[in-house]
């Protein structure tokens, strides 16, 4: 299911495009924001959970995954170079899986690892203590590992979705952006029922399961997050494989 030649071409193609410069932009913004907040706030605040959790999982990771996930396949479909891969005996499922793995790997580098770094810089989160004892700190390492694990899960699920969107429409970036802004940023944070179908909440649910940080405002438990995340990933990839198997070139009508 994984083809090293497809992976090599995909990596070269993705990193050689001008769009690759955008990969690091959300991560740089997150780290700079974390440094600025760390410098301007006293310790034991809730901002790390809000910034790295809510902002990181519903803005930073999906935007990075969107740029990368639509680059690995959508860009090749747009410019027509995909035909050189598809006119070979390599199974379309292997093409999808390989591109998904490459996209996920790049998203981990450009989104999940920066989450880890930013979480370590922040010094960790805080949770309200029992009674009126104020905030109790969560260790930086625990906090960082929890966020990194949640970000890993988000990288996997988001990329499955965006690779599928790339095979479904030639306007993958526009559709993906609309999905991120309307569904993940707006609806999932304000409409409780939407959380069950929100990738950012799957990630937050997993992170919260490790850090036990209510400030992350995870709308789902760990088990629900893992199961739903797995279902979305599998369904999205199956759809992508099926759509790519039916990939067509349009001829000119007479």
């Amino acid at each position: 299911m994984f083809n090293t030649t497809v992976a090599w071409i995909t990596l070269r193609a993705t990193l050689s495009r001008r769009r690759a410069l955008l990969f690091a932009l959300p991560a740089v913004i997150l780290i700079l924001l974390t440094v600025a907040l760390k410098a301007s706030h006293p310790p034991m605040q809730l901002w790390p959970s809000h910034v790295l959790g809510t902002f990181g999982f519903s803005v930073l990771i999906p935007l990075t995954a969107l740029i990368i996930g639509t680059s690995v396949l959508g860009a090749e479909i747009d410019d027509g170079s995909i035909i050189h891969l598809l006119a070979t005996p390599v199974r379309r499922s292997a093409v999808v899986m390989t591109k998904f793995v490459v996209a996920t790997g790049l998203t981990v580098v450009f989104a999940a690892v920066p989450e880890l770094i930013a979480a370590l810089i922040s010094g960790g989160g805080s949770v309200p203590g029992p009674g009126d004892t104020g905030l109790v700190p969560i260790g930086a390492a625990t906090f960082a590992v929890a966020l990194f694990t949640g970000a890993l899960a988000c990288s996997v699920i988001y990329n499955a979705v965006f690779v599928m969107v790339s095979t479904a429409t030639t306007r993958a970036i526009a559709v993906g952006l609309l999905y991120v802004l309307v569904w993940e940023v707006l609806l999932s944070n304000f409409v409780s029922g939407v959380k069950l179908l929100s990738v950012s909440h799957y990630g937050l649910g997993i992170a919260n399961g490790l850090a036990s940080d209510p400030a992350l405002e995870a709308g789902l438990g760990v088990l629900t997050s893992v199961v739903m995340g797995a279902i979305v990933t599998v369904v999205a990839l199956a759809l992508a494989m099926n759509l790519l198997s039916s990939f067509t070139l349009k001829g000119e009508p007479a």
Partner: protein
Amino acid sequence: MTTIELRNVSRWYGNVVAVNDVTMSIEPGVTGLLGPNGAGKSTIMHMIAGFLPPSRGELTIGHGSSWRNPGVYRQVGLVPERDSVYAFLTGEQFVVSTAKLHELPDPAAAAARAIALLDMAEAADRKIATYSKGMRQRIKVAAALVHDPEVLLLDEPFNGMDPRQRLHMMDLLDKLGSEGRTILFSSHILEEVERLSGTIQVVVAGRLAASGDFRAIRRLMTSRPHVFTVRSSDDRLLASILIGGTLAGGTLARDTLAGRPAVTAVELTRAGLQVRTSDYGAFCRDIAVLARDHDIRLREVLPADESLESVFAYLVAD
């Protein structure tokens, strides 16, 4: 030996019919798929290549369908019309990676062979981004040939090639065809097909207009009258020379021709001479010689109806 079969194949997009009930058999050797732009050639090519399902009918390469069947590419090489290759790779990297995708036992050797076949060895270590259009076309053909396919599909393969590259490509396709491979190429340029192909399939407005030996079909095409508009320094003199007699009432008829069997009628108009001829090539040669011998300066010799569409329309009318 692999044959491509289309049986009652149609393809439509909504209410628009792109290919209408086409039945053809493409045997080993070189076959040209000929037709004007928009005739449905690319649609047929895409269907054969497995990148478009027929709306109706049956299409097979060898014994299998090409739609949703990547295994078919073990015996098929495809050169798409669209000029999109991995520009960030060198020519060699592109062909070697294609060989790897075909899981060939020695990708480097197969790539070297294909690159040499296309006379691209000198440029193989340059990035494809630096190639001319003709070179990109050739490296695409090298990649399509790297696994030594029995069937080679080429969509408008001569686009962007200079005359020398064209000749080289034609010789190569000729050689591959004579080795028993099934080569199908599409073109809207009659002369390309004439030079290369013994068998043609002519598609007009989505229908198969003619099929078979090129020379027989070409005879049909050339036996029709051709009309030229000619302007010269002395149209009246040229008219009388062409017709070999004197003008009477503006038009002269065939029975007055003197040694110019290609010319069937000449009409003197305000725009110049309208000359009807049954032999396109002979007329083009003769008129230059005649003008020189009689010290007439030719200002314009314009085929009035030589668009490929008109040729095909004539063919369909037959």
